[in-house]
């Protein structure tokens, strides 16, 4: 393993979008919207290109380290990219890019001119890159808050009920963020350091009552950001009320952050943490059952997808308590879900915009009228169901195997059962959409950019299905080596 420090590409990935936004604001004040748009595309394209670069270098066997200012941890903030980080960075930025491409078509329903949406998308991308790469507890708080504020703003940009949904998310999101800040401070008080290499969840928990409370707060707040039952209540409203490209970004990318940070904090997830592990298991299983059943009764098509996100988060958390194998399976599942869900939201968004309603019964037969969109839509939904040859199948099977080997039979059972129940909802969705049209729906002029976005994401999904089986092994190795990487990085920077 070769540790490269300093790797300026990490700094670019995190800083470039924010700097672009600041330039964009100047352009906006000068009333030069075309310059603003050009800046937006420049910034996002730069971030995507550098993410690809990072992913390539990381898969060539390097571990990239960048310490801001050259200050060694725990005094300074260090960005570390191992294989897990590289994959998640690339996946997230790809989804954001695809949604940005699709954004133009949905702008008419926004309350403000385009520049605000572009600015918030860039800030979101920057916050996400920061969350993926950073290794300092307080920096996680700051990056998460950037991510969250951009999400609240993105949700509230849409006309209609969206402001209420954004408010609900924002109030409780603020609470969760404060819990993160407090736990960062208390961890510093207990340990003298906030660096991931010096802090581990199990270690902090064993430091007495304060440590236990801190771990509880951290885990709760991260499970809120990933929408684990019962902290999922904000999700159905927020993700269904947002405009489709933003629903895709939220359900695909921002959901990843919660458990990703947990995994970065402790490579074995919550496996060796006794009470906390059993609590999370129970909540995840209850959440899965609740979400699967809730999916069946929804009439709003976007709420079906939103509850499906809750379901998949529950699966991921079940995996987090099942040892390192479970954690790698959970990470893979999160990845396949992210791509599939983003694609689903984008395609559904297209159809819904054409028909003008989110009701499943009104949408009957709408799919046939827009055949170009129907194929990626079907692909994404089949991916969510988990049929071969889609990557969703591989990730579910791996998760199942990991759960069985680590002895949580009830979790494996719940996985199978709820997959079945959810499959009913998905099939119902597909059936409604594939039905021969009952009323005349005008065939839309599909903008070229929109098809680029949708087919680009589908290509990414296909690519993922090719590499998924090896990805599990790669994640496993990376997780086992995670702690060594942190210590090595500390040595290299000093």
């Amino acid at each position, binding site marked *: 393993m070769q540790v490269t420090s300093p790797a300026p590409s990490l700094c670019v990935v995190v800083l470039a979008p924010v700097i672009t936004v600041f330039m964009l604001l100047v352009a906006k004040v000068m009333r030069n919207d075309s310059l603003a748009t050009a800046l937006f595309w420049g910034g996002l394209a730069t971030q995507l290109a550098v993410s690809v670069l990072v992913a390539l270098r990381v898969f060539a066997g390097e571990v990239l380290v960048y310490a801001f200012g050259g200050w060694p941890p725990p005094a300074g903030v260090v960005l570390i990219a191992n294989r897990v980080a590289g994959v998640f960075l690339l996946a997230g930025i790809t989804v954001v890019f695809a949604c940005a491409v699709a954004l133009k078509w949905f702008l008419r329903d926004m309350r403000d001119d385009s520049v605000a949406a572009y600015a918030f998308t860039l800030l979101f991308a920057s916050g996400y890159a920061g969350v993926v790469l950073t290794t300092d507890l307080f920096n996680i708080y700051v990056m998460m808050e950037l991510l969250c504020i951009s999400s609240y*703003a993105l949700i509230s940009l849409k*006309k209609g009920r969206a402001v209420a949904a954004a408010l609900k998310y924002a*109030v409780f999101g603020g609470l969760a963020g404060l819990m993160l*800040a407090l736990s960062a401070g208390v961890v510093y008080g207990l340990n003298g350091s906030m660096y991931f290499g010096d802090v581990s969840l199990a270690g902090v928990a064993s430091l007495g009552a304060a440590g236990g409370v801190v771990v509880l707060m951290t885990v709760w707040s991260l499970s809120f950001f990933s929408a684990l039952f019962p902290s999922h209540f904000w999700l159905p409203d927020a993700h269904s009320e947002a405009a489709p490209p933003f629903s895709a970004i939220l359900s695909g990318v921002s959901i990843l952050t919660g458990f990703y940070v947990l995994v970065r904090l402790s490579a074995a997830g919550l496996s060796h943490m006794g009470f906390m592990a059993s609590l999370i298991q129970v909540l995840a299983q209850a959440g899965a059952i609740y979400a699967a059943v809730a999916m069946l009764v929804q009439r709003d098509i976007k709420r079906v997808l939103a509850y499906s996100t809750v379901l998949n988060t529950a699966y991921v958390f079940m995996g987090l308590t099942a040892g390192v194998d479970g954690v790698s399976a959970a990470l893979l599942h999160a990845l396949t879900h992210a791509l599939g869900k983003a694609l689903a939201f984008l395609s559904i968004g297209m159809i819904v915009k054409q028909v003008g309603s989110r009701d499943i019964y009104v949408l009957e037969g709408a799919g046939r009228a827009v055949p170009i969109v129907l194929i990626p839509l079907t692909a994404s939904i089949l991916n969510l169901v988990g049929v071969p040859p889609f990557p969703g199948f591989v990730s579910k099977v791996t998760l199942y195997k990991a759960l069985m080997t680590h002895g949580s039979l009830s979790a494996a059972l719940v996985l199978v059962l709820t997959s079945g129940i959810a499959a009913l909802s998905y099939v119902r969705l597909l059936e409604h959409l594939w039905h021969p049209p009952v009323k005349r729906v005008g065939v839309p002029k599909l903008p070229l950019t929109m098809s680029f976005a949708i087919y680009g994401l589908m290509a990414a999904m296909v690519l993922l299905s090719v590499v998924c089986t090896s990805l599990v092994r790669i994640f496993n190795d990376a997780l086992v080596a995670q702690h060594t990487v942190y210590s090595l990085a500390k040595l290299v920077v000093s």
Partner: protein
Amino acid sequence: MNEVNLFLLNLAIASLLISVGTGIAGTILKRNVVKKVICLGMVSDAVAVLLAFIGFRVKYPSLPPVWLFKEGDEVEHALRVFADPLPQALVVTSIIIGVAFTLFLSVAVVKFYEDYGTLSFEKVLEEVEGEVEEGIE
């Protein structure tokens, strides 16, 4: 440190923790959005003060971490006597983020009130389960 100082310190921390608890309860339980925002502000301020407490020295004398000495002098003395600068930086950052939050929430509440005329978002979002608003996607 002696009993009285310990008791006072604990008293301060206990009251702050109770503020945090009350604020959290208020955020969750109150139905009026404005009250939720106020309780969130309460939690934010109490968390900031708690963070600041973590850096204080529990023995006297203690000084703020500003170098008033000549350069290079008495580093060990400084380390024994300065308050920890890191929690103070955490406080500054978290207060700014809290301000940003309150700003966004307040204006969103005003917009919400203008749109719906009610200050309880439960009422607005309640009817959504199982039903779909026609005409808007």
